[in-house]
C-alpha cells in the first residue's frame, strides 16, 4: 500500500496502524492511527509527520493517537489525542487547537418532518435572525467585564442562572458545562475585548447550526437511541457546531508566545514551533490551563445561549413552548480540549484536538440517564451529507483515553473548493436536494461544499469496527445556517 510517508507503518489490525519509535529520533512512544486501509492511504503527509512529533513530547503516556478523520493541523494533527503525566508531562496549546472547546451539541424535538417542512423557510429565517453568524457577528447578550468573568468561571451554569436554558440541560453537557480551575486573571485584555460581544454567535468556517431529520431506517441501535429520546419516524433534531470564537483563539495565541520563551527556560525542544509547550505543573503551564478553562467555559456558554435562541425561534414559529415541543438537550461534547481525567491506570492530562471524548458505559462522569449506554458522541459531517450519533465504549476507555473521531475531515483546500463551485450555485443545488441554506458569505459557503470533505460514513465505519465508539443513528440535514 502506498502511503504519504516514508516511515514504516505496521498493521495492528484492519483498523489500527502503528509507527514504531525507531522511525523518528526523539519518539518516546509509538504513534497509532485508527483508519481503514483506504483512509490511511488517503491521509496527507502531515498526519504522519505530526503524530510522530507528538510522540516526542515530554511525559507522553503509551501512544500518540490519530483518529480516522485526521488531517494536517497546527502542531498536533486534527484528530490527535495524547495523554501526559500531569506530574512531569507538558501541556500544549497545539494539542488543544486555536478554537478552544470547539464542540457539538444535539437537541431533540417531538416534531416530525411533515410538521416542520411547511414552516421550514420561516423557521430558517427566524434561526438566522436570532443566531448571528459570520465575520464580526455580535451576540444579543450584553455583558459587562464582570459578567464576562462570571461566564469564564461558570460556563453554561451562568446561562442557566440568567435565564438562557433549563436546569436539566446541565447534566447533559460534558463536565456539566463548567471546567474547574478557570482563572480569568490569566486572560489578557485583548482576549476579553475580542470575546465579550460574541456570546451566542456561530462564527464562520466549518461552524453551523443545522436542522436534521432522523428516519426509522437511519437508526442502528434502537434501544440506545430511545434512551436519548430518539425514536425515528422522521423526527427533527438540531445540531450546533461552534466554539469559543475569537476569545479562545486569542488565549491560544497569547500562550503560544509565552510557551516559546518558557521552553528555552525549561530546556524543552519540539519538532514544530506550533507544538510549543510547558510543564503542566510549571507556572506557565498552570496559567495557560487556567486561561484555557476560561475559554472552554465560554464555549459551553456560547452553545447554551445558542440553544436558548433556537428554542425561542421554534416557540415563535410553532406557537408552543419549547418544553411542549420536547426540545431537550441530548448532549454537548467538546472536541478541542485538554483535561485531567481518571482512568484505570491513573490520572492523565488528555489532549483532544479534533477528537471527541467517548466515555464508555458505567463511567461515573456520565449522568445517570446515560451511564448504562455510554456517552453520546456527536460527529458532524459535511452540510450536504449528514452527521452521526454514536456512543462511547469500554474499548475507548482502554485504548484511546476515552476518545474517538469528531467529524469527516477535509480533503480539499478552501481555495480549490471555491474554484469548483460558486456559493449561489451550491445553495440552489442543495435546495433541489431538499436542504435549505442560509449563509452570510457565499464564498464561505462554497468553501464548505460536501465534496471538500471525506465521506463521513467511511470514517464512522472505522471507529465502529475498531470498537472505540458504536453507531447509534445517522442524521440527515434539511436546513443549514452558516457564517
Amino acid at each position: 500500500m502506498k502511503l504519504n510517508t516514508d516511515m514504516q507503518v505496521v498493521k495492528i489490525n484492519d483498523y489500527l496502524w502503528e509507527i514504531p519509535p525507531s522511525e523518528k529520533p526523539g519518539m518516546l512512544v509509538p504513534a497509532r492511527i485508527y483508519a481503514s486501509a483506504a483512509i490511511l492511504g488517503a491521509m496527507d503527509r502531515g498526519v504522519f509527520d505530526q503524530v510522530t512529533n507528538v510522540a516526542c513530547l515530554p511525559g507522553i503516556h503509551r501512544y500518540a493517537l490519530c483518529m480516522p478523520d485526521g488531517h494536517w493541523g497546527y502542531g498536533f494533527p486534527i484528530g490527535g489525542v495524547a495523554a501526559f503525566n500531569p506530574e512531569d508531562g507538558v501541556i500544549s496549546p497545539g494539542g488543544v487547537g486555536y478554537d478552544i472547546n470547539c464542540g457539538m451539541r444535539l437537541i431533540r424535538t417531538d416534531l416530525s418532518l411533515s410538521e416542520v417542512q411547511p414552516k421550514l423557510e420561516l423557521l430558517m429565517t427566524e434561526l438566522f435572525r436570532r443566531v448571528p453568524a459570520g465575520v464580526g457577528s455580535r451576540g444579543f447578550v450584553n455583558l459587562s467585564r464582570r459578567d464576562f468573568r462570571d461566564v469564564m468561571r461558570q460556563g453554561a451554569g451562568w446561562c442557566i442562572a440568567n435565564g438562557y436554558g433549563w436546569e436539566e440541560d446541565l447534566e447533559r453537557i460534558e463536565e456539566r458545562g463548567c471546567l474547574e480551575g478557570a482563572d480569568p486573571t490569566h486572560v489578557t485584555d485583548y482576549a476579553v475585548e475580542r470575546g465579550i460581544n460574541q456570546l451566542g454567535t456561530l462564527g464562520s468556517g466549518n461552524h453551523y447550526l443545522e436542522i436534521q431529520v432522523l428516519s426509522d431506517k437511519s437508526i442502528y441501535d434502537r434501544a440506545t437511541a430511545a434512551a436519548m429520546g430518539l425514536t425515528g419516524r422522521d423526527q427533527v433534531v438540531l445540531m450546533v457546531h461552534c466554539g469559543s470564537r475569537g476569545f479562545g483563539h486569542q488565549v491560544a495565541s497569547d500562550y503560544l508566545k509565552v510557551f516559546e520563551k518558557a521552553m528555552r527556560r525549561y530546556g524543552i525542544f519540539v519538532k514544530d514551533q506550533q507544538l510549543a509547550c510547558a510543564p503542566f505543573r510549571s507556572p506557565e503551564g498552570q496559567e495557560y490551563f487556567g486561561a484555557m478553562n476560561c475559554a472552554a467555559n465560554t464555549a459551553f456558554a456560547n452553545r447554551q445561549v445558542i440553544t436558548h435562541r433556537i428554542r425561542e425561534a421554534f416557540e415563535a414559529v410553532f406557537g408552543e413552548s419549547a418544553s411542549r415541543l420536547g426540545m431537550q438537550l441530548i448532549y454537548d461534547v467538546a472536541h478541542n480540549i485538554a483535561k485531567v481525567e481518571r482512568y484505570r491506570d491513573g490520572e492523565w492530562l488528555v489532549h483532544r484536538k479534533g477528537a471527541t471524548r467517548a466515555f464508555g458505559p458505567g463511567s461515573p462522569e456520565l449522568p445517570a440517564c446515560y451511564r448504562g449506554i455510554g456517552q453520546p458522541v456527536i460527529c458532524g459531517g459535511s452540510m450536504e451529507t449528514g452527521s452521526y450519533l454514536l456512543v462511547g465504549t469500554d474499548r475507548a476507555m482502554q485504548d484511546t483515553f476515552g476518545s474517538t473521531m469528531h467529524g469527516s475531515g477535509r480533503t480539499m483546500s478552501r481555495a480549490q473548493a471555491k474554484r469548483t463551485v460558486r456559493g449561489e450555485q451550491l445553495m440552489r443545488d442543495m435546495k433541489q436536494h431538499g436542504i435549505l441554506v442560509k449563509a452570510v458569505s457565499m464564498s464561505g459557503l462554497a468553501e464548505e461544499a460536501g465534496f471538500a470533505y471525506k465521506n463521513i460514513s467511511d470514517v464512522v465505519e472505522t471507529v465502529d469496527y475498531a470498537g472505540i465508539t458504536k453507531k447509534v443513528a445517522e442524521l440527515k440535514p434539511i436546513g443549514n445556517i452558516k457564517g
Partner: protein
Amino acid sequence: MPGFFRFLDDIALADMAFDAEGESLPALFDAATRALIESLADPVTIAEAWQHTVDMEEPDIDTLLFEWLGRLVYLKDAQGVVFHRATLSLNQNDARTAWHLHAELTGAPVDPATQDLRSDVKGVTKHLYAVTQEGASWKARVVLDV
C-alpha cells in the same frame, strides 16, 4: 512600486494561506495587509465610516509583521469592523534596535446587508511563517486560521 500577494491552494487544507511580496519592506507590509483585509471582506464594498490609528514597535521585522496582522484580527472582533484601507509607514530607530509601524486604518462596522463578507479569520499562525529577503525583494508567507 506596490507589493502583491497571492492566496495558496495547497497549504493549510482547512484554513487560508498567502504569499506577499514587495520590492521594499513597506511594499511587503502593504501587500500582506491587503491580503488579510481581502480575506475578511471585499474592501470595495466597505465604506470609510470608521478610522483608527495604530502605532507598534517590535525588535525585528518578522515579529512586527506578525503582531500587526494579529492586531488587525483583534480590531475586527473588538471593534466589530471590517476594513477598507490601511496606510502604513515603517521606520527603524537610529540605534537599529527596533522597528516602528504607524498605520492609519479606515473601514466600517460589519453589515452583511451591504458588505461582501468573506472569512472570519480568527488568527495569524506561526505555521510556515517566514519573512525573507531575496536580493532587493522581500517576501512573507502567512497562514491564517479560519
